[in-house]
């Protein structure tokens, strides 16, 4: 069971940036490698602040890092 519907592209972004290891990203964010793994696997939703920090590390907008699926009946 994944505790969040938020998906992310961190793995792809890491691969495109170097590649950057999970440990490298964790160090730049000031979190543990286990936290980066949990975020990548959708087991943990980071705080808004950490989410922005991740986007800033990759130099992309927040929407390029995290996606939230559109629900049925929601306007597009």
């Amino acid at each position, binding site marked *: 069971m994944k505790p969040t519907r938020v998906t992310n592209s961190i793995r792809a972004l890491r691969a495109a940036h170097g590649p950057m290891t999970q440990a490298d990203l964790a160090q730049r964010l000031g979190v*543990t490698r286990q*936290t980066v793994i949990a975020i990548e696997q959708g087991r943990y939703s980071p705080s808004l602040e950490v989410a922005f920090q991740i986007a800033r590390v990759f130099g992309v907008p927040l929407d390029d890092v995290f996606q939230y699926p559109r629900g049925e009946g929601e306007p597009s």
Partner: protein
Amino acid sequence: MAFQEKRAWIMLGTTAGTYLAYLAIVLAGAAGGPLTAAPYAPALLWTVGVSIITTAALLTAAAFAAPEDADVRDVRDREIGRSGTHLGRWSVVLGAAGALVLAMAEADHFWIANAIYLAFTLSSLIGSATRIVGHRRGRPAW
């Protein structure tokens, strides 16, 4: 494995182990007679002491085994820790209420002390189990 998860496993193991040892000592002390006649206080104090010392020793060993992770705690660890504390607190509240009822009913000291000890034990077990689940499967999205 994150250091905070190791800490939760150590707490879970030492709490469960020492409480089971306490139960065995008290049951043996009762020797088939009434439990209230068993000398529970020395066993309780000893097992609490052993639990604290064992936990400290195992945490120190874990820190020496992986010094780079020793007691590192980030925002996720703190959130998971708070979940464990929050859930574990309920058993302390229920145990205190139970002990209060036992005291008002003038129950034997044995039962009052054991209700409180059980509450603290359950609090530690529930808190540790919650932390382990939080580290392994993630926290639910509230």
